[in-house]
């Protein structure tokens, strides 16, 4: 099977969907001629033409608003917002228009739009190039929110997102574009070609939206994570030799409650980890869900490991980033409690 990194896998997903469905178009800043600043749309304009892979002005409100209009009229646009940090000028169009279209027209029409956007830290991007804003989007009813953690899922989930009749905000953890990152910046980078999920079929396949994945089965505790943190969690669990069940949430909305419940009912202990800031972060939703679903199985308080409640600092990236050390402490705390 071919090896792909996450960028190639995402590129392949768009390539396949552009080929299969004449209504699919790709639009964004520098996505066409240049092929994207992360190279995710490389070659697509040459292959499908300027009318299908479109360079947009720096105007996120315009990009997102216009793909809504395209979507209503039967197209399946894939908009790229170059960094998740740049999505806010288009936030109004997402929150006030895109998310509400189906509901306010009582199901008469909607916009099957996909908005792709690289997110997350670990790249020395500072406060406007490192954010993880998924929680702002999961709070809006009417959009789905997805974040893959590996090339295989990235391709399969992006294909699902494009085919989905609801709008999907698709966050790509850019720190793991080229390889799984376990949270230790001093280790040499590991490429996806050394990871089983770097094997990606050439052709069409999909990974369903709404399904979490048990990345590692275990008995002692459950670690809920997504994106880059899936790899950090695995490394941390190995460090303490905990028999952790690690669950990659993958799609935040809709959430696969059944898989989460099954796991925590078995282990009785739960650590939740994400890069995003803690207060009102998506981890709070996960924690509340586990409490509601598994209260009588819990043997210890749920612990969250998150970004600090500050803007993303330029200095001290690795103190800010929820790395292995903080995760190990949380695992030990949860295992020792009760």
């Amino acid at each position, binding site marked *: 099977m071919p090896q792909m990194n996450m960028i190639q896998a995402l590129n392949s997903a768009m390539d396949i969907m552009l080929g299969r469905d004449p209504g699919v178009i790709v639009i964004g*800043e*520098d996505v066409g*001629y*240049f092929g994207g*600043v992360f190279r995710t749309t490389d070659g697509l304009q040459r292959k499908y033409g300027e009318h299908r892979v479109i*360079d*947009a*002005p*720096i*105007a*996120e*409100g*315009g990009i997102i608003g216009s793909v809504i209009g395209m979507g209503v009229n039967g197209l399946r646009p894939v908009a790229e917002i170059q960094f998740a*940090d*740049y999505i*806010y*000028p288009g936030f109004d169009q997402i929150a006030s228009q895109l998310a509400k279209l189906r509901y306010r027209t009582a199901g008469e029409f909607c916009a099957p739009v996909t908005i792709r956007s690289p997110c997350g830290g670990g790249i*020395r*991007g*500072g*406060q*406007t*190039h490192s954010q993880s804003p998924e929680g702002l989007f999961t709070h809006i009813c009417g959009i789905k929110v997805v974040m893959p953690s590996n090339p295989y899922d990235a391709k399969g989930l992006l294909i699902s997102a494009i085919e989905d009749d609801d709008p999907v905000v698709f966050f790509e953890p850019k720190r793991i574009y080229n390889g799984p990152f376990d949270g230790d910046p001093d280790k040499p980078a590991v490429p996806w070609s050394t990871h089983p999920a770097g094997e990606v079929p050439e052709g069409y396949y999909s990974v369903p939206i709404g399904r979490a994945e048990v990345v590692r089965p275990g008995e002692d505790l459950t670690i809920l994570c997504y994106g880059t943190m899936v790899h950090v969690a695995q490394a941390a669990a190995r460090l303490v030799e905990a028999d952790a069940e690690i669950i990659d949430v993958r799609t935040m909305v809709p959430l696969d409650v059944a898989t989460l419940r099954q796991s925590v009912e078995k282990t009785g202990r739960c650590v939740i980890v994400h890069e995003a800031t803690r207060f009102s972060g998506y981890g709070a939703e996960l924690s509340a869900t586990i409490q509601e679903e598994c209260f009588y199985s819990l043997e210890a308080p749920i612990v969250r490991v998150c970004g*600090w*409640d*500050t*803007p993303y*600092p*330029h*200095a*001290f*990236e690795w*103190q*800010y980033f929820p790395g292995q050390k903080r995760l190990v402490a949380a695992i030990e705390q949860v295992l020792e409690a009760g």
Partner: protein
Amino acid sequence: MSKQISDEVLLDIHRRMVRIRIFEETAGKLAEDGKIPGALHLYVGEEAVACGVMVHLSNKDWITSTHRGHGHLIAKGGEFDRMFAELFGRSTGYCKGKGGSMHVSNLDLGMLGANGIVGGGPPIAVGAGFSNKFRKTKNVSISFFGDGASNEGAFHEAANMAALYKLPVIFVCENNGYGEYTPQANHQAIVDVADRASGYGMPGVIVDGMDAVAVYEAAGEAIERARNGEGPTLLECKTYRYYDHVGVRGMGMTYRTDEEVEYWKGRDPIDMMEARLAEQGILSKKDAEAIHEEVTKQVQAGVEFAESSPMPTPESLLEDVYA
């Protein structure tokens, strides 16, 4: 016309341009060597714009800057020590290492901030202008922004408000022909961003952004209008960045020709200024070289200061989120 400009002002503009050039060349090398973390957007080639505008300003006149902000801060009086320290992420930096290249600011100098968000600055400059009018000062605010940024809604909202309230704001468009890797012709259907001014009810002025004296004169008129309560101006400076969008070598992708780069380098703002100064007998070639050497030493001292400065304490990471 330029004869009316005093020798001191010309020399001041020249020195500020040299300070930017050598700072940026040095910062670019340090970034390429992996010594400065994060992305740098270098201002090399565009020095005439910042300096031609900034010599008119006092520290009470405020500016908003862009992701390409080092030049604005230096032209506004920024010190190499604290700038390098900020880029290196040290506690002695202008923002104690919390901001970095794309978010450096200093209120004492009237520099409200470089900005990682394209189009983030113009509305803030409108508010700064409003406060100056409200307090009945003669101060102005200046918003620097690119050709690419002129497509953001925030710019349009800001321009309308500034004209509506007749605020002492000057919108300085640094039109370098590209937004990232997209040429202007592929991101807007106009050639002159200044055309947009009339749509908001303010004058639009176009100037050669490689000619510091031309920028100085045009900016002077706009600033005087603003100080006299006659409202905002959109000043478009046609300029060029020599290096890639990010860093020196950038991504090594072709999106512009070597001939184009060479053409603009042939109109180098510092060379043109030095030729003018020599011709007018204000600054000999030798004296110009001495200035370059002096500034180079100052830049080196700035790097040493930054490298020997302490890192911020881990606790300070959590400070300054709220009052």
